[in-house]
């Protein structure tokens, strides 16, 4: 799981993973006409694919839903059990699925504000409370 960018090379979401790997930049797919942000990569439901562009966003949002894993989904996560998997609603609108770090799972609440964790070499963008 250490090189997601390589796994999805040539896929529609590749720019997202390249930007994260190369500089911890967090991108969303945005329609250049209506300004609506999307994740994962998609066509604008009003203006189609040609209007879409990748833009950097601050990567903040609120926890929309979450659950606590008491068994590791992959062996790489075994040391992190129990860990929290959350669905975020990013401030730009789209959902983003990630793990919440830096807080005990039992203290997490729906509606809690979170921000992107940087500087720890994460291969996948993880979040923590603001």
């Amino acid at each position, binding site marked *: 799981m250490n090189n997601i960018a390589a796994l999805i090379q040539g896929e529609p979401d590749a720019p997202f993973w390249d930007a994260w790997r190369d500089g911890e930049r967090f991108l969303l797919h945005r329609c250049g006409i209506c300004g609506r942000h999307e994740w994962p990569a998609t066509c604008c439901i009003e203006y189609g694919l040609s209007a879409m562009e990748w833009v950097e966003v601050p990567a903040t949002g609120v926890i929309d839903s979450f*659950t*606590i894993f008491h068994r590791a989904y992959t062996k790489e996560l075994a040391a992190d059990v129990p860990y929290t998997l959350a669905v975020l609603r990013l401030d730009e609108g789209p959902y983003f699925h990630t793990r919440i770090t830096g807080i005990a799972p039992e203290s997490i609440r729906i509606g809690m504000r979170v921000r992107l964790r940087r500087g720890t070499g994460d291969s996948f963008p993880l979040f923590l409370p603001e």
Partner: protein
Amino acid sequence: MDHFGTTSEHLGAGAVQLRQHALHRPDAITYGQPITLEDHQASPMVVEPFRMLDCCRDTDGGAVFLLTSAARAKTMPGVRPIYIRGMGFGHNIRNWHGRDVYAHHDDVAPAAARAFAQAGIMLDDIDTAQFYDPFTISIIMQLEHYGFCKSGHGGPFVADGGIALDGKIPANTGGGQISGFYAAGFTPIIEAMKQLRGEAGAMQVKNANIALSSGHGLNGGVQNTWSHGTLILGNEP
């Protein structure tokens, strides 16, 4: 559970009920292994709110049904045909685009509406329901979405014996996917066929003439289940 106060004990009641059903089926993976609510509560948490006994297991096996015209089925020797009375599907991709997914992740309403309209029946006409049930919560949510009980009341409905053989709507009478066998959408279809043919043994629903069978899944890579299929089966055309 956050919205309605459904509890782990409600989920457990469903697990115990399904296990009771499977005790009558020698081909069930949990045959001869009854459980109690205490067993459920003591089983390890996997992913909240699901304990081990809330989850189905991988099953090796096979299931087959033959699909043909009603006219031809009647000519086949030794066969008691089961008829497709109605079918419908729902897919809530619109909720993904509308960013309103998680409280309404399945899409029972349009699937049920079309299937019931085709069959020309009402909910009260269903003699037994066979739900797709990979996890205990699935039965509770579908009981609510189909209208067998009020929204948010699925947990108490199951705990009060609502899906038992003598309950308001006998459901997943073979133990379902959790205690019977997991064969994807074949599990509920095969059990519906057994009921309508009168081949359900000790779990036979009396006068079972019309059965509901459901399926859900598909994710588009970004979300859990959000498609739903409804099948109305009958032992008469």
